[in-house]
């Protein structure tokens, strides 16, 4: 009885602490975004509620916020789509074709994803400038797709290997080409995995900072995270209010996305682990 009680206390306080700890910056972000002045705590006037920051964000053409937002959405969307496409073709071949040392290959792939991003930025910058891809969507979509590929591959390999071979054979006999088998049978069967991969790739590309900072110099392809970081006031001061408003606008859709689809995502990520 007593032990049960303490367990509960521990659990509840743990959850509360974690929730507070992780959400405080977000709450602070939202509060500041609605404050007339960012250092409202130190002012005599205190907190004054205003939507001025949001109006500034969307109305001031010099901030290019809408450009950044569009860039982010297009680049992330394409990266995620391309990732799912390539990763599912790769995962399908890996699980279906006789392939020596499959697991070594997969470990190798995973190993690549452990590299720090900074280790390739110099090389990446050279390549992209030689190809003339600085400040273009393609210039960001390519590295994003490559970077998120290992994780996507792992998720989809674990899904596809759970689909019995006889389903493929049946599809072949029913008249499917390899491609039709992949898109009409494998994709629907691995839907949660495909979905998770898409969302994770999208979120990664949406949040990514370093590549975007390096490979863009103006609003033509610059994404929101970099754009926000480089916001400047008229006289060089940092416009905290606008920054927080921009952060709120860009974070909320992602948070909502994760909350709505959390079941799918957790299922997608743990599937391999549970199945062994």
């Amino acid at each position, binding site marked *: 009885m007593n032990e049960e009680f303490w367990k509960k206390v521990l659990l509840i306080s743990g959850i509360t602490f974690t929730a507070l700890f992780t959400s405080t910056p977000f709450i602070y972000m939202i509060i500041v975004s609605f404050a007339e002045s960012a250092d409202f705590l130190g002012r005599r006037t205190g907190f004054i509620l205003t939507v001025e920051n949001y109006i500034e964000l969307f109305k001031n053409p010099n901030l290019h916020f809408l450009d950044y937002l569009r860039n982010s959405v297009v680049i992330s969307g394409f990266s995620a789509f391309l990732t799912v496409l390539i990763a599912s073709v790769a995962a399908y071949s890996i699980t279906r074709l006789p392939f020596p040392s499959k697991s070594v290959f997969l470990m190798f792939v995973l190993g690549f994803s452990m590299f720090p991003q900074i280790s390739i930025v110099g090389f990446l910058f050279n390549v992209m400038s030689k190809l003339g891809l600085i400040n273009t969507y393609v210039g960001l979509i390519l590295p994003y797709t490559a970077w998120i590929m290992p994780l996507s591959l792992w998720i989809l390999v674990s899904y596809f290997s759970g689909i019995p071979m006889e389903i493929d*054979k049946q599809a072949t*006999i*029913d*008249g*499917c080409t390899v491609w039709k088998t992949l898109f009409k049978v494998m994709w629907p*069967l691995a839907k949660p995995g495909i979905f998770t991969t898409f969302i994770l790739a999208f979120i990664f590309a949406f949040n990514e900072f370093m590549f975007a900072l390096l490979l863009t110099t103006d609003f033509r392809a610059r994404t929101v995270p970099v754009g926000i970081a480089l916001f400047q006031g008229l006289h060089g001061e940092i416009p905290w209010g606008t920054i927080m408003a921009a952060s709120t606008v860009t974070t909320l859709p992602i948070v909502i996305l994760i909350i709505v689809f959390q079941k799918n995502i957790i299922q997608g990520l743990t599937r391999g682990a549970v199945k062994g």
Partner: protein
Amino acid sequence: MTLRLVNLSKKFVSKSRVVVAVDNVSLEVNDGEFFVLLGPSGCGKSTILNLVAGLEKPSGGEIFFGEELVASFEKKVFISPRERNIAMVFQSYALYPHLNVYDNIAFPLRISKHKEDLIKDSVNEVAKLLNIEDLLFAFPAELSGGQRQRVAIARAIVRRPRIFLLDEPLSNLDAKLRVSMRSDLKSLQRRLGVTTLYVTHDQIEAMTLGDRIAVLRAGKIEQIGTPEELYASPCNTFVATFIGTPPMNVLGADLILDKGLWFLEFGGIRLEIPSIKVFSSNLKAGSKIFFGIRPENISIARSSEKAHFLGSVRSIENLGKERLVLVELGSFEITLTTKESGIREGEKIQIYLDPDKVYLFKE
């Protein structure tokens, strides 16, 4: 559509070993025939089916559908499974879990781009044929084994395939359902008149379904024949023990010619056999051979004039209709079936082996 396999072989080569799964198999399935491949696990039955379906490429030999060459190792011909227009039913049914019964059956038609109203008619027709009209909008996970089986068969026949391939389709069903599905399958095949190649390791299934049966061992054909032929004249001890329940007794013996009469000598026992048996088997006097006799051709003799040998009862198994009795005879053990219920374990009995029903084998 006739199906002809000519010197068909399939090797699987992996790092550690080479498996010859199919070894020089030749056979011909007539138009509309129900042909069964029978053999123990691992003898290459599924591999033959996969070769016919085009899921595997032969490593030797040829496959003909009618006059059309669909696969040849030597001539480098390989028609893809899509273009062969065959249907296959797997042991696991392989229904598409994300599609309901209707869409499962419609799948092959949709892939070959039939018109939706034609698809509807075809699906309804086969659904009626297989008694699954009420299930059309259920998903595979909601169906029983027998229902899934019917859906898999419906999906297979909806395209009017040239050849119908079935890989142990009944082995996941319970005994009662298996018997009723067996007769349904047979009458369905008759009605459609489609050339059928059926794989099983169950000899009862093979005997009841097949117009003809090929018995396989280790990738090779041992014997091809009608069920009656295989039962009445098995060509070797493998086929002899594989066909028939309970299985035939097979014992090693010496073939003796003594004063113009032929005898089998085994375990200190001498059994006279008709000389015609020896002449037709072209075995030599004095050689070591095997002889077989089915349990139903051994009987218990109470009156001593008919009695041949004295044996002692080791065990009795009640099969309901009759009893399966294991008898120690000389230094051998032999099984027989009897309707008599008065026998006890350990009892000494006189048994009679019908010499006319003895089979002689070289190996």
